[in-house]
């Protein structure tokens, strides 16, 4: 009898913590919305690991209550009681969340995740608390900061803590917090400090002064990241311009004609990528992730074939009449755009980044380098290298250079100039097709895709001079970086106009572009 009593007591004791927690779900289910908010605030300040499933279920909208207000969790095929093993009476009703509760719930979830074993999870929780932390969580944050051993999480926690301490009543605490914020280089700290200084929000003179110093400090730290970011997007834009302009420079140098349909070769390259993606999703879904690699040769050959066909049928007959060629190729571009519009529709088509091209590398707090852009920069340089090898180390390249320098003399020496023209035109179009594959990974793919790049790539050719790879490279990256650095200062439009004006002025000094071919021919 005695032993039986002990057993029951022991059972009760064992069940006690569980029972205490078990109350949470029931408490919440029975509470009014105002009381639910209070509960959530309390949970956020004093997290308990056992409560995590409840919070996660609440956040996923999977908690329902039956007629007796007993809480249940909705699972595949039925309901499971959150506490005890009751069966639902009647059909359970979902617990609704309003926006305020949702916010509080997120904060509470973050508090609980601060105890997670995975540092990445703790880091993301700390980061969320930087934005949504509540004063009640101060003690919790201090305690976690002491216990934390991962440096990144520590830093994030420090920021979250300092952020909260800015609202403290004691000026000394605020002062310390302001200094702490100044030492981090987080974009969040800047906003917070600016808010503090704006509208006389801070009354204590010493704290204000410290905040100003800290703000300057943060801005200085951020400036570096911002400049790097601008330079990076400039490089990225430059590499795309390079891919777009390289082929144009070759054909312009060789034939002296501007191919207005060149932008459409970019567009066709991008649409080829789309087709490859659709076909691979149907035929070889297991290798879908590598569709951009498959698209590269396909796009090259498709656009090169179209380019060669154009050269044979139209451009060939217009040699020596560059302005007419310009108009004729414009006509071709109109037809190509409209053909794509009729075949694929006027809307953009969906080209998805494969997994290995999405996401980015976090270098600084305010600088993320997207993988797709990094790959494209590398790819552009790779294409330049291939083109250089082709032009300088092969027989075809030798012939191309000979015809570029002096067509008549080359023809006298037995270079088949007609064939060279066709092949070079194909090469230029093919490079544009490769550029189209790259473009499809970072922007929208639609019939007007090429139009947006054509004027800029002409400017690259004008600036870089014809028939010189180095000129195109310098001009493309120079234009790209100048565009991106001017953009935040004076706006994208004024930046473009300024660059145009600069190019016109530059041509005054160097009419042949950056790198001119030396020659003695005058028209």
């Amino acid at each position: 009898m005695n032993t039986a009593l002990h057993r029951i007591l022991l059972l009760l004791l064992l069940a006690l913590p569980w029972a205490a927690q078990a109350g949470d779900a029931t408490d919440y289910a029975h509470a009014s919305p105002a009381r639910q908010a209070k509960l959530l605030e309390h949970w956020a300040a004093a997290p308990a690991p056992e409560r995590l499933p409840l919070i996660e279920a609440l956040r996923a909208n999977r908690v329902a209550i039956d007629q007796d207000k007993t809480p249940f969790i909705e699972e595949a095929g039925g309901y499971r009681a959150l506490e005890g093993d009751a069966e639902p009476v009647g059909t359970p009703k979902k617990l609704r969340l309003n926006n305020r509760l949702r916010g509080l719930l997120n904060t509470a979830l973050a508090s609980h995740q601060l105890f997670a074993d995975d540092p990445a999870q703790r880091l993301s929780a700390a980061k969320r608390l930087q934005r949504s932390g509540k004063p009640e969580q101060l003690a919790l944050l201090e305690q976690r900061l002491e216990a934390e051993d991962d440096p990144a999480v520590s830093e994030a926690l420090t920021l979250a803590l300092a952020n909260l301490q800015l609202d403290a009543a004691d000026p000394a605490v605020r002062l310390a917090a302001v200094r702490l914020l100044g030492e981090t280089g987080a974009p969040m700290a800047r906003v917070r400090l600016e808010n503090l200084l704006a509208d006389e929000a801070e009354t204590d003179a010493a704290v204000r002064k410290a905040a100003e110093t800290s703000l300057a400090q943060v801005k200085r730290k951020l400036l570096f990241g911002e400049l790097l970011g601008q330079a990076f997007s400039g490089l990225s834009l430059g590499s795309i311009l390079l891919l777009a302009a390289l082929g144009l420079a070759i054909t312009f140098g060789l034939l002296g004609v501007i191919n207005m349909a060149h932008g459409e070769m970019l567009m066709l390259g991008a649409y080829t990528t789309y087709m490859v993606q659709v076909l691979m999703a149907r035929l070889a879904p297991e290798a879908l992730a590598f569709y951009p690699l498959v698209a590269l040769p396909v796009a090259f050959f498709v656009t090169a074939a179209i380019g060669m066909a154009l050269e044979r049928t139209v451009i060939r007959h217009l040699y020596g009449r560059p302005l007419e060629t310009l108009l004729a190729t414009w006509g071709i571009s109109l037809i190509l755009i409209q053909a794509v519009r009729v075949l694929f529709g006027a809307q953009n088509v969906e080209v998805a980044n494969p997994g290995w091209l999405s996401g980015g590398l976090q270098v600084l707090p305010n600088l993320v380098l997207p993988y797709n852009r990094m790959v494209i920069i590398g790819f552009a340089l790779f294409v330049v290298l291939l083109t250089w090898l082709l032009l300088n180390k092969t027989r075809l390249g030798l012939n191309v250079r000979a015809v570029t320098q002096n067509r008549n003399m080359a023809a006298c020496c037995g270079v088949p100039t007609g064939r060279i023209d066709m092949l070079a035109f194909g090469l230029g179009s093919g490079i544009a097709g490769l550029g189209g594959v790259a473009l499809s990974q970072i922007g929208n793919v639609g019939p007007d895709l090429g139009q947006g790049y054509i004027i800029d790539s002409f400017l690259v050719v004008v600036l870089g001079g014809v028939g010189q790879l180095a000129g195109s490279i310098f001009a493309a990256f120079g234009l790209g970086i100048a565009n991106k650095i001017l953009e935040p200062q004076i706006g994208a439009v004024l930046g473009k106009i300024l660059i145009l004006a600069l190019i016109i002025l530059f041509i005054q000094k160097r009419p042949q572009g950056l790198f001119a071919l030396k020659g003695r021919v005058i028209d």
Partner: protein
Amino acid sequence: MNQPLTLTAAQKAGPKLTAVALGAVLAVLIAMPLLHLLPADHALHVSAYSLTLVGKILCYAIVALALDLVWGYAGLLSLGHGLFFALGGYAMGMYLMRQSAGDGLPAFMSFLAWTELPWYWYGTSSFLWAMCLVVLAPGLLAFVFGFFAFRSRIKGVYFSIMTQALTFAGMLLFFRNETGFGGNNGFTDFRTILGFPIAAPGTRAMLFLATVALLAGSLLLGWKLARSKFGRVLTALRDAENRLMFCGYDPRGYKLFIWTLSAVLCGLAGALYVPQVGIINPSEMAPTQSIEAAVWVALGGRGTLIGPLLGAGIVNGMKSWFTVAFPEYWLFALGALFIIVTLFLPKGVIGLVRRRGEP
């Protein structure tokens, strides 16, 4: 093409025939607005739609003529004439906006909560100043751009590309809301011009007659220029600039004059276009529009003055018909036109007529 084609064509066909043909066209163009004034149920009444359509095409014909002056005679293919056309149009449009707004700010500015007029729009409530702007804005821009471009001897495709970039930059600028040019929608919803209601038959007829007068005046001016020594120097410049320079001519002044004149003509055409069509927006500056003007000239025949007018009429007539009948296929047709004209009609329709005339 040692001599302007019109001259040789006119000499061949006999001055009488040309004069009779031109006179007949002119008579029809003058009769149209008068017939528009007839009551709507009259058998010879010309509807407002046809009058506006023909008026629009006449404005485009002036642009084609202006482009022919620089391309056909001086060999400078401009792909940016739409910019000058739109600048003239915008200056006129602002005057019309101020007319309908009365003493207040134009509707698009009060909509953006602007409190005062930007400096460059000062004085646009006066018709005279607006007319000055119509001439000055495109003229000055063309002068400055031309000064720098011709100084460094930019020509050929380089020149074409730079003009195209210029109009593209202009389009970007005018598309913005904060620059004070009405943004995407441009200027529209005009009511009166010089106090007359803009949609009244009498006003329409007057505007149409003004367009005809401008066209006839530009044609006459072009003709005189082409026959003068100035015109012969321009042709020489187009065909062999270096030889001309060896002969002691400085081509810069010639180019700059014809280039600026051409821009001003475009601006005037734009100013007449806006009150007739009732809207001006940045799409007029789109590179596509300007390059389309080049095909009008090419189709009609470069360096013939009359040809470009024909070309503008044919292409725009086709466009009106196609966009109603087969909207999907208009761009195919236009693209094919570009290719066919450059491949098979190097001297345009006029050249074709002339060749037929020869035994």
